[in-house]
């Protein structure tokens, strides 16, 4: 089974902190994604990466950055956390033929 693992299920951070959300997949997928999930808004794409050291902005990249130093790991960085970044964050990887995405369990981030 494909596994996408997010390092934390719950995080509480203070405003202004730098926050790292980690995601690891074990199926050698090239494409990885970070989404943000908010009630009534569905999943919105923050960033995605189609190869090591490659990244593309999604629909809501402001206030975020990403890092992909190794194929299996895709990190989301909140440079200076703000309360409006309180949300559920979902990581996903996409199979090589782009036919199926696998999701992690999500990280519920609260910024206080």
């Amino acid at each position, binding site marked *: 089974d494909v596994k*996408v693992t997010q390092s934390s299920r719950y995080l509480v951070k203070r405003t202004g902190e730098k926050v790292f959300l980690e995601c690891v997949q074990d199926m050698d997928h090239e*494409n990885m*994604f970070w*989404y943000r999930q908010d009630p*009534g*808004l*569905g*999943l*919105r*794409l923050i960033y*995605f990466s*189609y190869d090591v050291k490659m990244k*593309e902005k*999604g629909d809501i990249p402001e206030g975020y950055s990403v890092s992909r130093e190794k194929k299996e790991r895709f990190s989301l960085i909140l440079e200076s956390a703000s309360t409006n970044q309180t949300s559920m964050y*979902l990581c*996903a990887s*996409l199979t090589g033929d*782009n*036919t*199926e*995405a696998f*999701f*992690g*369990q*999500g990280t519920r981030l609260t910024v206080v």
Partner: protein
Amino acid sequence: AQSVTQPDIHITVSEGASLELRCNYSYGATPYLFWYVQSPGQGLQLLLKYFSGDTLVQGIKGFEAEFKRSQSSFNLRKPSVHWSDAAEYFCAVRPVHKLVFGAGTILRVKS
């Protein structure tokens, strides 16, 4: 730009009743379409997908969906809903290297 619309934010059905969740998409080329389900506290699980061929696709847990190009729709159906189907359902379209999701429909099942 690609987009997905799920017109119903909440739907409540009785256990044993039939279900249809609506999904409309906007995409220029032949779409790859998906339905995902998210149970409370869980990640997203793929129910079914459509790429080409037969426009009626079968998925897991007794779900099916029908692709109608003329209506730009990909509605999800189930003939008899079980209490365990209560969850949030997301329709998605895949342009090239990413997935674009709808806002989701929350399904409540009453006994």
